[in-house]
């Protein structure tokens, strides 16, 4: 991972000269602004930062960042970014993707990047709809969703992106919301500090094709009762007055929400993002219902495991350490290895 150096960069330094072309009111604007204003904090020079994206509304993101960037093809950003990250450990590589890009056409690349633990920061903008193709249901759309391609309701059960990432044993898994800049940036900060794959789901509003998809999580009158704000080392309580909490019922497989008044304080689960087994974070990811109640946000999981990049680089270094002579001399030696014969 890139080492921080003293730099005097500002938000403005990360804005490219390209006109931003998302629909007015799109949640992507808020995410872009949050990322641009967070970037100086990284302490990494712009030239060592690369944004790689696939296809979809979110994937236009790299054009607006004044860093290096590649707008690639549908679903393939994690694969392309893997090649870049592994061969250039000096870079800070970010992947920007959406629910269709990452979970449908690119599902395979996503899970494999996560299981390898490639040193990528993956930002998945989840708006539960296909926006750029004008309103078809996505792999995170609710069962029964009525869209242009499902006039009587979709028959597909949705993916839970965090459950999927945890199933692939991602080492860093978090969720945040487009409209909460402070929270979004705190999650970006934690992701940036993580060595290995950091998977961040960002709930993002598509005001054209799926407006209000996460309204209860944003509306001041409901959000406190709906959102579970995870804090490492803190008991998991939520609600306007802390009236709800998360417990691990004995004999049960997972976690459940209870009224705080009905349980003793020691029964309340203390959030630990460092639990090695992904089962705990997985249980957290299963808490929300279809109505968005009990939606945890924050860092679900942050564990340490050697990154693919580090392992590959150390193999290269170990091989190089055993050699002597110039590359040309080594090549000459290799060509003449094995059973050779000479004709005079």
């Amino acid at each position, binding site marked *: 991972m890139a080492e921080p150096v003293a730099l005097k960069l500002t938000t403005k330094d990360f804005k490219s000269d390209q006109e931003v072309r998302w629909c007015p009111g799109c949640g992507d604007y808020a995410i872009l602004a949050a990322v641009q204003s967070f970037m100086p904090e990284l302490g990494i020079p712009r030239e060592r930062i690369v944004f790689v994206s696939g*296809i979809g509304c979110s994937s236009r993101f790299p054009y607006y960042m004044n860093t*290096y*960037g590649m707008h690639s*093809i549908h679903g*393939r950003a994690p694969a392309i*970014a893997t090649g870049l990250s592994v061969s250039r450990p000096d870079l800070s590589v970010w992947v920007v993707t959406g629910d269709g890009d990452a979970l449908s056409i690119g599902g395979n*690349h996503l899970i494999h990047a996560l299981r390898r633990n490639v040193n990528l920061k993956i930002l998945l903008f989840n708006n539960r709809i296909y926006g750029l193709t004008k309103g078809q249901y996505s792999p995170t759309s609710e069962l029964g969703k009525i869209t242009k391609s499902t006039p009587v309701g979709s028959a597909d059960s949705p993916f839970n992106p965090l459950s999927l990432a945890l199933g692939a044993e991602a080492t860093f898994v978090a969720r945040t919301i487009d409209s909460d800049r402070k929270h979004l940036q705190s999650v970006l900060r934690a992701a940036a500090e993580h060595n290995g794959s950091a998977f961040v789901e960002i709930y993002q509003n598509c005001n054209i094709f799926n407006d209000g998809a996460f309204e209860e999580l944003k509306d001041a009158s409901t959000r406190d009762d709906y959102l579970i704000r995870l804090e490492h080392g803190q008991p998991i309580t939520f609600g306007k007055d802390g009236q709800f909490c998360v417990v691990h019922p004995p004999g049960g497989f997972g976690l459940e929400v209870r009224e705080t008044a009905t349980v003793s304080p020691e029964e309340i689960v203390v959030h630990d993002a460092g639990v090695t087994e992904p089962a705990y974070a997985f249980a957290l990811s299963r808490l929300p219902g279809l109505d968005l109640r009990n939606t945890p946000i924050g860092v679900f999981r942050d564990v340490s495991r050697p990154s693919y990049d580090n392992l*590959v680089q150390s193999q290269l270094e170990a091989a190089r350490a055993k050699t002597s002579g110039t590359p040309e001399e080594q090549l000459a030696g290799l060509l*003449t290895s094995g059973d050779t014969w000479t004709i005079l």
Partner: protein
Amino acid sequence: MTKQVRQLDRVVIRFAGDSGDGMQLTGDRFTSETAQLGNDISTLPNFPAEIRAPAGTLPGVSSFQVHFADYDILTPGDAPNVLVAMNPAALKANLGDLPRGADIIVNTDEFTKRNLAKVGYTASPLEDGSLDGYSVHPVGLTSMTVGALAEHDVSKKDAERAKNMFALGLLSWMYSRPYESTIRFLERKFAARPELVSANIAAFKAGWNFGETTEDFGVRYEVKPAQMSPGTYRNITGNAALALGIIAAGVRSKLPVFLGAYPITPASDILHELSKHKRFGITTMQAEDEIAAIGAALGAAYGGALGITTTSGPGVALKGETISLAVALELPLVVVDVQRAGPSTGMPTKTEQADLNMALFGRHGEAPVAVIAPRSPSDCFHAAIEAARIALTHRTPVILLSDNYVANGSEPWLLPEVDSLPDLQVEFATQPNGEDGSTFLPYLRDPQTLARPWAIPGTPGLEHRIGGLEKADKTGDISYDPANHDFMVRTRAARIEAIEVPDLEVEDPDGDARVLVLGWGSTYGPIGAACRALRQRGQSVAQAHLRHLSPMPGNVGEVLRRYDRVVIPEMNLGQLAHVIRARFLVDAIPYNQVRGLPFTAAELETMLEEVVKNG
């Protein structure tokens, strides 16, 4: 007893047995011994895709053919002079290729009622007179091997498995091969199990001694070394040569190499080989699929590595969208397609040249790329370097069309001096190139090559964004301008045409040929052998072979028009012929065969003679 020694100028031997009989290894060892002796050689492995097809059945037969001579040869030989048949299936599957009078060495232990019935023999061909026209040598290979190893501390199964070494020993004796390299090989291969080293060596020597003592083999043969150019040689398969070419390209470009690959027959050996050479700064990634393999290679190329992906036809089909992206991004990328028989899964271990259309045209939009093809196993080394040269210099994807025949076949390779290999160094952009001195224009082109700057992440001041959307000339900004798109499409085509490739050379030693045979890729050997044979019989015929299929050499049209007739043999249904006819309006005669096997020189000779005589 002293045996008669007879001199031969060339021999073709085919080792055939069950997939589990170790025929590929036996053939490989015999080839290596033969190479040590200084004969010219050419080999043809032929095996099923199944790892262990049901034992003793026809689909399970695996064979290895080696042709060696005291002169320069071009093919693994049309018809074997000697067949080693380890079981009835191997005899039945290969008998049709044998000319009358050929030697057949059979393992009689396997000619049981049950094994005969498995392949539909109602009576043993060893007894019913059906092999009367051949010189049959019945040998109890299995029982004699087991007998020879009676004192060795190995299981009966391991003893039986050593029968291929007995056969190798016998053939090595018959053809007076030096066997030191085989002994060394066995010592290396079984280093962890010394009892197998001594057992296999003992089996080999028992085979050798059997040849020397039995009366069944009255004659021993010698094939003198061939007259070859001075230098150091090694025997090399196309896949191994290609891997070495990639390593050499990394050294000569001074770039790290990144190989993204997904296992696929018959390309996987390149991945295996390159994964052993990390010390050269070579990263190999076995990706989750073909698309990820090329994606990662392209990502690495964006970061300044020599990006390569290796696959076969089905993989290229999957990679098509990413190749198009590389065309739009104008980044260097080498795509190796070791062709196999298609469509779909087809015949994964059999050869074909039917991916030419896909390489030239198989992408959405106008997406031209460079396409080259090696002509022989050792030529794969130079073709890999040439592919890297074009990719790096012109910032373009290059498709290298190898095929199963050159990939798994082998020949002696005169090892090149490293200093004689082309210098592939290119420069990354380091400074803004705009007229104002501070702007960077990622699509401002080199006037000669039309290549854009390779500005890799990490370079201060050159931060820029690239992508699959159409770009404005020079700035690379997103553009939907009609005139710009027209300009960019034409420029991408012109970029490929701007690649410098050497003129097409014609071989016409008589100088008065009226018929030209044009080929590409692995058909070089059979076409060349057929032309030689015709010339020896007093006929004139000219041969030209295309290495560069896109762009083609500038003189192709002129060469074609010099001849009355142009014949194009291909292991497909006329893909190059189609291009030649469309592009040069030449009434070329296609000659096609798609049997999963290379052309025989004899069939091409017959066909060409017809054209030469009748026009």
